[in-house]
């Protein structure tokens, strides 16, 4: 009789542990999703800013057509990625866009008139901030993914993770070399 109770007790504890670990994993996975949504919002914001920027800059920059076209092209490529694209693919496209933007804004140096334009200054603040937000959101996303992946790979939660089919998350890595060297856009 006692043995039965002991077995039942152990079973109950195991079930409770399973539930706790499962819920913990779900919480972490939701955090990863939420963090991804944050990056997404900022990437969209940047896509929306670029036509404006190109429009403002075009009038001043007669001889930089290629730079401008590169920005527009990179932006369109990044925007046309299907929503199903993974973090790695997105990161690559967005990295291209970042470096195209950085080249454009480096060229701005040669146009003092442009740097005095109020419209451009406002855009510049927005763009700096959006770049920052993207990198901060990426920090938070990667930290969340690391936490989640650790949890899916460590004992004993890895057992629950394989049983319930929790897949490891994908990091949002910057793949473009230039971007890694100079993550900030240089305006001045």
């Amino acid at each position, binding site marked *: 009789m006692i043995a039965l109770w002991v077995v039942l007790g152990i079973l109950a504890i195991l079930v409770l542990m399973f539930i706790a670990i499962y819920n913990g994993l779900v919480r972490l996975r939701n*955090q990863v999703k939420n*963090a991804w949504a*944050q990056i997404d919002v*900022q990437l969209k914001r940047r896509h929306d800013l670029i036509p404006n920027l190109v429009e403002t800059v075009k009038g001043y920059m007669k001889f930089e057509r290629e730079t401008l076209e590169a920005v527009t092209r990179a932006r369109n490529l990044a925007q046309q990625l299907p929503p199903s694209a993974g973090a790695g693919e997105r990161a690559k496209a967005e990295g291209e866009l970042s470096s195209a933007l950085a080249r454009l804004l480096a060229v701005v140096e040669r146009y003092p008139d442009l740097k005095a334009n109020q419209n451009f*200054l*406002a855009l510049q*603040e*927005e763009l*700096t*901030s959006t770049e*920052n*937000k993207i*990198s*901060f*959101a990426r*920090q*938070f996303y990667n*930290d*969340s993914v*690391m*936490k989640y992946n650790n949890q899916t790979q460590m004992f004993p939660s890895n057992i629950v993770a394989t049983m319930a089919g929790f897949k490891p998350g994908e990091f949002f890595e910057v793949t473009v070399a230039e971007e890694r060297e*100079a*993550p*900030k*856009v*240089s*305006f*001045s």
Partner: protein
Amino acid sequence: MWEQVRSNQTRTIVLVVSLAVVFLLLGYSLGMFFFDNGTMGVIVAIIVWAIMNLIAYFQGDNILLAVSGARKIAPDDHKRLYNVVEEMKIASGLERMPDIYIIDDPAMNAFATGRDPNKAAIAVTSGLLQNLNRDELQGVVGHEIAHIKNRDVLLMAMCSVLLGTIVILAWYGSRFLFYGGMGRSRRTISTGRGGGGAIIIMLVALVLLVLAPIAAQLIYFAISRRREYLADASSALYTRYPLGLASALEKIAASPYQLRAANQATAPMFIVNPFNRKMTELTSTHPPIAERIRILRAMAGASLADYDRAYREVKYDRKGIIPGAAAAGLVPIRAPSPEPPDEVQQARETSNVMWRLSNYSVIECACGTKLKLPPTFRGSEIRCPHCGRLNSP
């Protein structure tokens, strides 16, 4: 990485518990003194504490904002400030955007309120906005967001209520002792119930009455300083740029102004102690600025572990400040942001926000002069003091 912040809380808990112990001891000894019953005293003390807590809770955090004359701004009022706060909100993973307030004061300071991270607010002075560049502002805002994220606002509010209760109990206790309580306590002793033991208890109670408020104050300061270091470390981690906060602190330390609206209870929430008085480290809510700057400048990376290492180097303290941080991974420091608009433009931008918040209307004269009209202006025309043209508002 964020887990480490939580593991550091054990030492804070030790300090808070000792504060509570001082509180209960005081209650017990007062009870022994006046009711011959320690438990009774503890109950009374807890009731007083509960009432104080209710008052503090219902007064809300807004009282601090109201007292300091802070005005809430919309995103478009000051784009840069709003963006910087949003950046830090994203970096810290805070769920809701805190409200942003500006205080019209040349002193350079900032504070955070909000027991609940979802109902938080950040206030900065106009002096701060005028003098800090983007990276520095980010460091300061990161520090304040860290106070919200680490739940320091709630912690310090609870501690300050506890401290306040101890001070009040000790104060009333000593008044009763000298004016009313004496007869009663003498009677208790003369009934012979306690004898020598009772006298010893009386003496202990007397000593506690004097020492409790002092001890409580010192513990309170210790908790506050610990949370400041932690907020600095978190700010460096969020911004990935400890030099921004370091240089902001340098500018703040060099500023001669003192914040007009500040009081002792709210002091721990500011970025630097709003009182300029000379204080030893033991009796201040904030660590010395010079030390905070040295630690931030000594950081090799931006992680909490790097802060801990720098802290140990600068303070010659082997225990460190964030014990659990050793395992954190490599977090490189980022490059500085490009320089924002020059200082004149920055000052003008800030003062324009202040005019707008005071409901002044601005008309631009054809000569380029900006005329600022007070909300009480009723005339139909105004002459430009510069070129003499008549403008209609």
